[in-house]
């Protein structure tokens, strides 16, 4: 049967999806996210310690006067404050690094996955032992 009227065109359904924008302060909304952001920011303080160490070695190579100037620079209250903050970030960075390395590595022995603490544990032990040896070297009189 033929119809004179044109067929009704098929209209595609376009649902009005609601999209929520991610807040600029998303990293403050959950403790886990804040911990992650602090972990990432800690790399800036690691970089600061690396630069400081390089400058220390450089000034030591330039003789006692240059090294004296460097030590004087370290006594600046702002540098002391920055170094104290950096120290905590470096410790935090190291702890999270060792914990994450256990999760990022999949080592299998005899077909069984080695548990995480077997990977992070030796790292922590090595860290403490090396730190203790360095502390002993520096502090012995």
């Amino acid at each position, binding site marked *: 049967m033929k119809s004179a009227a044109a067929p009704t065109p098929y209209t595609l359904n376009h*649902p009005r*999806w*609601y999209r929520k924008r991610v807040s600029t302060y998303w990293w403050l909304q959950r403790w*886990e996210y804040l911990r992650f952001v602090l972990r990432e920011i800690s790399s800036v303080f690691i970089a600061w310690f690396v630069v400081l160490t390089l400058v220390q070695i450089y000034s030591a190579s330039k003789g006692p006067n240059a090294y004296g100037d460097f030590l004087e620079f370290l006594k600046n209250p702002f540098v002391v404050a920055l170094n104290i903050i950096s120290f905590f970030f470096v410790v935090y960075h190291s702890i999270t690094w060792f914990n994450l390395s256990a*999760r990022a590595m*999949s080592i299998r022995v005899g*077909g069984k996955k080695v548990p995480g603490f077997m990977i992070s544990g030796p790292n922590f032990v090595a860290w403490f032992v090396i730190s203790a040896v360095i502390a002993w070297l520096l502090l012995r009189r």
Partner: protein
Amino acid sequence: MADTIKLEVSRYSPETDAAPHFQSFEVPFRRDWVVLDALNYIKDKQDGSLTYRWSCRMGICGSCGMLVNGEPKLTCATFLADYAPQSIRVEPLRNFPVIRDLVIAMNDFMRKLQKMKPWLIRKDEKPVSEGEYLQTPEQLEAFKQYSMCINCMLCYAACPVYGLDPLFSGPAAIALAQRYNLDSRDQGAKDRFPVLSQHDAIWGCTFVGECTRVCPKHVDPAGAIQQYKLTAALDWAKSVLMPWGGK
């Protein structure tokens, strides 16, 4: 103990609402009820227009993922008793567009999943008459954890990288690619490599680790991504050091 519990449920009707709002419901508090039971009660007795996805109510279908008090959860495995007497806030999964009430659009995830070729790829298909491709328990163990994924998308709701960069392939898709890469029967790792070793795929991941924390099936997508980063980096190092090596 109170005999009812309050649920604040996110409602969004594309026909009438500009943005979602919360609606409160009082439902009977029963120790053996999960959030999904409460939603079903609301739909049966109080408001039939409440829209949400669910199917198996036993943690296998991956349909009923929602935010419960802001945390991505399978509502079929989230007991009211763990929140009572406080009220419970139920919202659609974060980082996805909302179609209606608690239903999100999963098109993006499905497209990304398909790009990973999550199936067994063989160069030489042996005839059926020769039987199965056999595997030892060790070979099964290598990928079994990743095969537990039920595509519930809780990991996408937990991942801030996916929220900020919608092009990011996301945790489950990469973990499932890895599931096939690690399967001894599969020969498609090289086919998946160009898809996986992208900025939008493994290198987009900053190892927040939330995907692994919220995964109801203990798949550990974060671990899968970092392990594949190692594989990709070693592959790159090999290609630089031994450009003549058979690739």
